[in-house]
């Protein structure tokens, strides 16, 4: 489907992320074994996960805590390698071409974890240079993004003196400093107040309009309903349901559908 946006046309059916049978196992410490109520020293965090995300869409990985969402995103962002299977971002394998994958992605964290005495301007330049963005391009992008998100007036203010909302905007803008095709966001609104959460969700919607592909993990149903075009329900590291929001829900709310899937797999009443 050809979509027209203020930032140009793009083909929405273009596959930009493909996960193929991803599997990841972790070794559990004795303490973790106690917490997990298991005597097995290993835990399968992700078990044969496959899905695709397309250009100009927001794909949401929905699941309870410990389902394997973060592990999946960390594999896609090359922070950890899968035990087996592979994933492709813009055609590059996370196993064979992690550098190219890192070039193509922006990994957003829900908080800016950098020192308070740096300024947004310094941080933007620092991460831009780390991503190899040319100085001229970097300056133009800084001007454009800072103006669009109202950061320009605070560009030289120390991060520690910014409001939470502004801090979040800075964090978001920095994660797309190199204009990545794919933006990965782990629990985007976790721990944020309503105003800051709105900054994030508006930002994600805007990125989508810019033709970016967004992958996010969440356990918040309203966020999925509000933002996601496609959704994958993960339970115990396995993909329990995957498709467009309309296909998955089939007339139900995502919350009702999720618990239906959960019950069918776990056999438990929540």
């Amino acid at each position, binding site marked *: 489907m050809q979509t027209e946006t203020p930032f140009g046309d793009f083909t929405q059916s273009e596959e930009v992320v493909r996960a193929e049978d991803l599997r990841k196992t972790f070794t559990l410490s004795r303490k973790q074994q106690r917490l997990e109520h298991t005597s097995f020293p290993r835990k399968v965090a992700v078990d044969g996960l496959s899905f695709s995300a397309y250009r100009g869409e927001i794909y949401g990985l929905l699941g309870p805590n410990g389902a394997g969402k973060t592990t999946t995103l960390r594999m896609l*962002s*090359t*922070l*950890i*390698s899968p035990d087996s299977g592979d994933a492709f971002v813009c055609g590059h394998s996370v196993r064979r071409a992690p*550098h*190219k994958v*890192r*070039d193509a*992605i922006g*990994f957003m*964290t829900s908080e800016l*974890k*950098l*020192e308070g*005495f740096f300024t947004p301007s310094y941080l933007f330049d*620092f*991460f831009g*240079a*780390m*991503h*190899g963005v040319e100085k001229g391009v970097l300056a133009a992008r800084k001007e454009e993004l800072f103006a669009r998100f109202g950061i320009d007036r605070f560009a030289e203010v120390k991060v520690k003196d910014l409001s939470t909302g502004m801090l979040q905007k800075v964090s978001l803008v920095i994660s797309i400093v190199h204009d990545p095709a794919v933006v990965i966001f782990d629990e985007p609104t976790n721990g944020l107040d309503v105003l800051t959460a709105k900054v994030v969700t508006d930002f994600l919607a805007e990125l989508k309009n810019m033709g970016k592909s967004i992958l996010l993990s969440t356990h918040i149903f309203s966020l999925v309903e509000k933002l996601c075009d496609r959704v994958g329900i993960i339970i115990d590291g396995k993909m329990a349901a995957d498709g467009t929001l309309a296909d998955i829900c089939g007339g139900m709310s995502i919350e009702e559908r999720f618990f239906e899937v959960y019950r069918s797999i776990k056999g438990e009443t929540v």
Partner: protein
Amino acid sequence: MSGNGYALRLLTRRNLKIFLKDKANVFFSLLAPLIVLALYVLFLGRIQEDGLLAALEGMGETGGAEEISAFCDSWMLAGSMSCACITVPLCACGTMIQDKARGICADLLISPVSKWVTPAAYFLSVVAAGLAIGAIVLGVCFVWLAASGIWLLSISDVFGCIGALLLSVVASSALLVFVVGFFRSQGAFTALNIILGTVVGFLIGAYMPISYFPDAIQKLTFFIPGSYTAGLFRNFMMRGALDGIAERLSPVFAESLKEEFSLTFDFFGAEVGIPAMFVVLACTAGLFAGLNVLTAFLRGRAKS
């Protein structure tokens, strides 16, 4: 400059900025040298001077207060300098732990640079911090000696001090980055900082000469690279004062001081002089730099 080279420079500068901007951290990195100075000014200096003058009197020599004072001052400054070469790199390692504990490493690793760049930048920034602050401390030591009217250093001694600073900082940085690399929490690092900051002055003989310790402890200090750092600084900073004692007072007394104040070591029967001290520090730097490369490689492989 290549992408990795440029990123290495950027990250090193960033780490260095983080360390230097934290004034409290910089101050605490100099706590051990300051303690040496304070103890010396308060009572250690007087005790040392009185003790040495009494020993000199016992040998039938009278006078020599000026020479002994110059000797003791140089000994104290050498001790302070040696402590700084260890404690400053140790505190600069704090950025590594801070980044690890706060998850900043992930933000850095997500950029398209090779995985060796981040650990290499930590090492370089620790070395840079050690050299920068070490150079300032060395400058203060020189000013102290000049202002006290006991400047007895030759040009070769000055260059010797600079060489000792360079090699000592690189060696202790390599060792400390390796050790701190195994730490995960800020609490554990703080504990290491406190313990090392407290005992380092004793172990390298900054508070009192190593020869005053029991034999077993003396032997233990031979296996601490910091002892060789202290040995080098003592040789370069105290040589002039020692020569003055030998010329104007007693060569025998000067020779005994050389041994008592660890200007040379008796390493299980073999005398360790200046060249051997440089070799020990160079080997320490090489060994731990190699171990750092190996652990970075193994950690990268484990993650994969």
